[in-house]
């Protein structure tokens, strides 16, 4: 019933204009975009404040899942950062056009020190909601806290390759790297989502509850942020209320006086509230209900291509009865799935079928993959023969209960049955499914959707693939950090690989590191193509399609900026 899609490794920015900026999301030299595009704030028309001066203009936004906390160092999920991003400011922002823009810093820096450091200079005149000035010590404290392993911050890994911070002058903080890493700024759009006052997280002894899980800011960030809205109250299961920051450093926004996030896990309740006017805006809309909303004259809708992929994870490990450890079986499934049909049946024709991991129109997608026919029953049947089961085989597909994925799973089941592959669908509660897929070897395939918030292809190639102890597909190589219960798995390294690799995963991890470190764009592209092709040739996982982002709002609301990776609610006005 509740489409409580709490997605991980996602930030609240949601939309991207597909053609334009993806090509621009290059790896090297991306820092040149420091001052371009930028927020919708500078484009906003005239008047500051919102609505009539007598009444408080409150924008009601319905969300499907409850936030977890209000400390940027603890945001492992979308729900919290969607709201939190209005209370805090990011150090580096991602615009709705998927470009980098300076947030709390004056400009998006290029690397210095032979690429081994980045210097970030704070703007002038920044204030916390409690009135105190923002200093470089606060900046250092905020970053150090996340980097400190004792704090167990769940987003530590979003600031990779940084060994420490250093105050350069009274407005500038330097981040020192352990290796060249040109895309750091893109990672920071999700890694540094706010600066807090020095000491405001509390000390280890003061905190109640386990460290890393709760800080002083967790439930009550009053006065702690710098953002366009100030925290008023959080009533669990009910709402989060924010009010306008009158002293916001960006001119002209926000326009509304208050934002009230209404927590409504139930789809139909959200929609009913939207229709009746109790809710002004929502972005959590099931596809089938979107159609009927489009027909409602008092409601405006918007759709943009999204950054969520519908993906079938596959257990690569050898285990009792697991047909997916066989590469030919995996490839058979891959060629047997018709992504276009899924988009038609489930998503009403919206979305983009994938040709491998990255957006098919981007220059960062391998040309070889662009040409490849992804749905090919003949190829699939040949794979089945190679696998030794020409008449097909049976596997179990895990799906989260109560989600639209079930319908999708049924379509896939239908498609695969045509080539003799029988799919048994098992629905599980979300936590139970995660436990089974990420903590055990006792599964075959899981149909999920996954959102990545950073529009950089190496980020996508990394998240969910690289960590040896835990990734989407039980893909492991022998190494000291491999937990006992796992064994190396997956196909071998490619034949033309240079060097000694214990298996494919080993090769993949090393090769990706090279791509992230090199400054030559052409070289990077070639490595990236190679990695993408490897993933598809070996059907490590099956990336089906990108689904679109949907939003609907009442006609009294305007200026909501939708983007594929990041949306901006700050300039919204309401009559």
């Amino acid at each position, binding site marked *: *019933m509740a489409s409580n899609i709490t997605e991980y*490794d996602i930030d609240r920015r949601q939309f991207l204009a597909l053609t334009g900026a993806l090509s621009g999301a290059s790896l090297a030299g991306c820092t040149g975009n420091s001052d371009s595009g930028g927020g919708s704030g500078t484009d906003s028309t005239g008047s500051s404040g919102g609505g009539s001066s007598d009444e408080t203009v409150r924008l009601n936004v319905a969300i499907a899942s409850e936030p977890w906390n209000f400390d940027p160092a603890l945001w492992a999920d979308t729900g919290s950062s969607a709201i939190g991003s209005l209370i805090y400011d990011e150090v580096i922002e991602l615009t709705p056009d998927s470009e980098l823009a300076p947030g709390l810093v004056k400009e998006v820096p290029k690397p210095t020190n032979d690429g081994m450091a980045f210097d970030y200079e704070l703007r002038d005149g920044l204030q916390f909601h409690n009135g105190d000035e923002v200093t470089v010590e606060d900046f250092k404290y905020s970053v150090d806290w996340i980097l400190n392993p004792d704090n167990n911050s769940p987003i530590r890994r979003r600031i990779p390759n940084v060994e420490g911070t250093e105050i350069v002058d009274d407005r500038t903080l330097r981040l020192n790297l352990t290796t060249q890493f040109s895309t750091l700024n893109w990672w920071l759009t999700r890694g540094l989502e706010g600066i807090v006052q020095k000491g405001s997280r509390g000390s280890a002894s003061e905190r109640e509850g386990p460290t890393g*899980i709760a800080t002083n800011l967790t439930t009550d960030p009053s006065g702690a942020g710098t953002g366009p809205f100030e925290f008023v109250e959080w009533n669990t299961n009910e709402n989060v209320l924010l009010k306008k920051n009158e002293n916001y450093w960006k001119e002209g926004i926000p326009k509304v006086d208050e934002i009230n996030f209404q927590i409504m896990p139930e789809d139909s309740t959200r929609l009913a509230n939207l229709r*009746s006017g109790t809710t002004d805006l929502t972005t959590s809309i099931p596809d089938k209900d979107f159609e009927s909303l489009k027909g409602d004259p008092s409601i405006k809708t918007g759709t943009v291509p999204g950054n969520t992929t519908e993906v079938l994870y596959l257990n690569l490990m050898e285990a009792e009865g697991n047909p997916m450890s066989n590469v030919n079986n995996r490839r058979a499934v891959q060629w047997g799935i018709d992504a276009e049909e899924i988009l038609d049946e489930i998503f009403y024709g919206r979305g983009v079928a994938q040709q491998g991991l990255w957006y098919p129109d981007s220059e960062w997608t391998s040309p070889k993959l662009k040409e490849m026919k992804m749905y090919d029953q003949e190829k699939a049947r040949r794979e089945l023969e190679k696998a030794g089961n020409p008449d097909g085989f049976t596997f179990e597909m895990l799906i989260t209960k109560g989600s639209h994925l079930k319908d999708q799973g049924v379509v896939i089941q239908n498609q695969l049955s045509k080539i003799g592959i029988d799919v048994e669908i098992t629905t599980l509660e979300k936590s139970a499914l995660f436990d089974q897929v990420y903590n055990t070897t006792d599964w075959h395939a899981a149909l999920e959707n996954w959102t990545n918030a950073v529009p950089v292809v190496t980020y996508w190639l990394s998240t969910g693939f690289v960590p040896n*102890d835990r990734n989407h597909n039980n893909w492991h190589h022998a190494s000291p950090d491999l937990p006992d219960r796992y064994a190396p798995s997956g196909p071998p390294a490619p034949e033309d690989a240079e060097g000694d690799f214990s298996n494919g995963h080993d090769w993949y991890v090393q090769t990706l590191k090279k791509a992230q470190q090199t400054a030559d764009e052409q070289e990077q592209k070639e490595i990236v193509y190679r990695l993408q092709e490897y993933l598809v040739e070996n059907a490590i996982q099956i990336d089906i399609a990108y689904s679109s982002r949907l939003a609907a709002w009442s006609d009294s609301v305007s200026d909501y900026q939708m983007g594929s990776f990041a949306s901006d609610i700050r300039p919204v006005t309401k009559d």
Partner: protein
Amino acid sequence: MSTARFILKRLMLIVPVLFGVSVAVFGLLHIAPGGPAAVLLGPLQNEQIIQEVRSQLGLDKPFYVQYWLWASSAIVGDLGTSWTVQQGTPVVDLIKSRLLLTFELALLAQLLAVLIGIPAGIIGAVRQNKPADHLSRIGALSGISIPNFWLGIVLIMVFGVTFNFDWGTGGWISPFEDPVANLQHLILPVIALGTARAAIIQRMTRSEMLETMNQDYIRTARAMGISEREVILKDATKNALIPVVTVIGIGIGGLLNGAVLTETVFNLPGLGKLFITAIARRDFEVIRALVLFITCVFVFANLSVDVLYAYLNPKIREDGGN
């Protein structure tokens, strides 16, 4: 045995019941897949961090140690702080802030159910097989068959959307702030929740009344010239209601159950919704505390029913004394 002793004896049974229930819940949570750390930190999180957090939450200790630690503070009223629902907030506060809503919802729904169900049952029995009876039987059947969350959604669509009543889409205001608005917001949820209960009560009352009306003592009353109205309302009803009361009492479980669904659909921040959130987020502290709380409610409800039953049925009263 006097009523006081009877009640006291029953109250003492709460202790072993709570013990048993809490051990069972503890055990189940222990076995259930996924845990608060995994849920909180995300599936791709570093193994080491997850284990760290688990051990800080005490989840790596042996089962009985965990139980002892929890139980020893629970007894003195310290039910811990929430791990994942609203991190750091004392569980007792979370429950307290929601108690009023769920209690009010359940109470009003039960009231509605009784106020509709019993008279409808009596009418159905007295006008057996006449239009009034058929109508109320169809009504009862629908009430039982229609899932209350579906009914809730329909009510929202009709009243909230079509007629645009702004209290028609859920939400809640404390009765201390604004009693009128409070009741307005509760009308639809109470209807959604109470209808099924009303239906059950109606059927039970009707069948009990039919049986009672055939009893010999009804014949005696009529033979003595007592008006039909008095015969129905006085002689028959008191007898018929005895089993109905037990059904009502046992049904309180169903009421709490339905409250969960109703609160979700109407977006009411009550105990039911808290429970769902806590389960999805594996917040053991909140789950345990809620289970204890609900157990107590059950025990009291059953106790009240028994006391009421004894009051209504003199035979039980006397037997209790012998």
